[in-house]
């Protein structure tokens, strides 16, 4: 009899646990997986922590910065039976295929920063952020050089596709808003691959091809790209009047900041999940999905950029600390709320 009661009780508990688990909302996350950037891993960490606080199941995959992997991951999400997916896909050419796979399975998708029809867009206005950064640099170029630089160098990252066009092109536009009379021939570009080390040699070559340039303003896809030019100028003994303004804030916090990196635009990329979950996933989990807003100009959730000078950036903690503070804050608090001084 005792044995029968024990078996009955354990069975009931087991059935309850299994059915609870089956009923729990399951969030899938595909992180970018590129080697370059800590924030790609942090995006997953933040999403996981918020999902756990909400009592959701969480399933994470890495796109490994690879097109084929991102499509395979979509199929894995379907097999895993997730209820919604958040992704950062740095190879946006496959987004249409991913949307087809997940859409056919009825799984809604939130995509970061690169819009795709049918997916909820959560992200920054990259063009607006670029313009804000360019205007920040433009103010310094006007103050120090009377809007007369010898060279405006763009550290391109063609691999980022349209994001590079928006960000880097946006910075040139922003600089032009403040200093409209800089001649077109003073604008030069080099391919930095968004990486300070990989872009170093092309940056040196560009500087060698412009030997008379002294006052050099640098814009680019990200902090790493502009630092390629800064380091090249230091090597060639020409860094005395170089001013670089980056984007993403990756190398402007902490105590190892290059003094020629005069500003950056923080996106607080690690905290995107706060926006995605607050404005999209919560509604889906509650059975009340919001309308699909997929365009960057009319997003499901708009992430605010935070342009900051080097001095302002010193007040921003390094990324690991930002993630800690973000997760300790009430759910729904964004990194912008916590860390942006503007």
């Amino acid at each position, binding site marked *: 009899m005792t044995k029968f009661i024990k078996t009955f009780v354990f069975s009931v508990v087991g059935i309850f646990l299994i059915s609870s688990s089956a009923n729990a909302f399951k969030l899938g996350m595909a992180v970018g997986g590129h*080697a370059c*950037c800590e924030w790609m891993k942090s995006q997953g960490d933040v999403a996981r922590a918020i999902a756990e606080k909400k009592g959701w199941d969480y399933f994470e995959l890495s796109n490994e910065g690879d097109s084929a992997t991102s499509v395979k991951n979509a199929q894995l999400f379907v097999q895993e039976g997730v209820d919604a997916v958040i992704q950062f896909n740095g190879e946006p050419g496959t987004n249409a295929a991913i949307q087809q796979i997940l859409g056919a399975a009825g799984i809604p998708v939130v995509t970061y920063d690169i819009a795709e029809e049918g997916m909820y867009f959560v992200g920054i206005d990259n063009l607006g952020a670029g313009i804000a950064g360019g205007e920040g640099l433009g103010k310094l170029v006007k103050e120090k050089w009377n809007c007369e630089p010898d060279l405006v160098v763009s550290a391109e990252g063609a691999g980022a596709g349209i994001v590079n066009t928006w960000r880097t092109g946006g910075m040139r536009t922003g600089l032009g808003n403040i200093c409209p009379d800089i001649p077109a021939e003073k604008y030069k570009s080099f391919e930095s691959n968004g990486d*300070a080390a990989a872009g170093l040699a092309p940056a*040196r*070559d560009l500087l060698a091809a412009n030997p008379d340039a002294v006052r050099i303003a640098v814009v680019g896809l990200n902090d790493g790209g502009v630092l390629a030019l800064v380091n090249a100028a230091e*090597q060639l003994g020409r860094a005395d009047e170089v001013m670089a303004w980056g984007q993403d804030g990756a190398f402007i916090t902490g105590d190892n900041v290059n003094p020629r990196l005069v500003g950056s635009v923080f996106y607080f990329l690690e905290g995107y999940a706060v926006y995605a979950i607050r404005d999209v996933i919560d509604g889906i989990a509650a059975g009340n999905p919001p309308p699909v807003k997929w365009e960057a100009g009319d997003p499901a959730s708009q992430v605010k950029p935070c342009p900051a000078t080097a001095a302002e950036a010193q007040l921003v903690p390094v990324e690991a600390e930002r993630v800690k503070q973000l997760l300790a804050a009430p759910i729904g608090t964004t990194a912008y709320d916590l860390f942006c001084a503007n």
Partner: protein
Amino acid sequence: MRLEHAIKPESSMSTLLWLRFRAFSAPIFLLTVWLLLIIATAIYRPDFISYQTLLAVVFTMSIVGVLAIGQALVTISGGFLDLSQPSCLIFASFVSVKLSEAGMPFIIVILGAIITGVIVGAINALIIVLARLNPIIVTLATNFIGLAVLFLLFRAAEVPIGSEIHTFGRAYFLGLPATWWPMLILIFIVGLLIHQTRYGRQTIAVGGNLYAAQTRGISLKKTRFLIFSIAGGFVGFAAILFCSASGPFNSDSANILQLNVIAAVILAGISLEGGRGHLWMLFLSVGLLSTVPTSLVFFGLSSDAQAIFQGLILILAVTFDGYRSRKVTL
């Protein structure tokens, strides 16, 4: 020497002169191409001939040159290619950063990087020797594994600004970058040692004819182990040059160097089949390959066009290597 010349005494002087010319044909060819490139660029853009251009080229030569020494040793010994250089370079660079952050003297940072490189090379060697596997496959696999481990270890690293190693990356000696002189000295010394020492000649013998070398009592296992370890040490030293100047780097940052290094070795006349080549030629091949991208910028070409030219040069170099190999066996 062709047989008909061997049996014609009246051709002996011209044959001798032809053989002497052929012995120097590769360096003459490389030097000629290099000079033609410089002249063509200078005609299009006279400001190409400048101190800034010289600096840009020699800075690029520094890292590629030292990596090419390690690669050349592997190739000349019959190990074909070491494809693990990117991950080895980043491992050693990461160690350099950590030692610098800990406030270690520069000499300790250098030793730490070299020892890291030697260890990575030794791991490659152990797998190749004990499992008797193809070195290309092993080093390709260890490169994949190494990059994955690095990805788990860190996302971005940078030597402390103002540290000794950071200063070294921007310092000059006799008007040229401090990072260039070690490359020049190492090419000269290793080029001398490989042909003038017993161990160096054994390395070439193993690459030239493995069975003949073994018959003479030369141990393939020992030679291969030492060569891969020493090659790793050169990569470790190259890491000092790399991280002293590069700013923030990540696990993928060195991938871009691999093709240039292999092209430099082949262009230098070091046969992929092993057993043949002069390391001194690396100075010319590395110099030429470092000048090409700078020259293309002066011509107004984009980075994409540079990659096309470098790929074409590699194809030409491999074709030339194959042609010379067939001539030798005829």
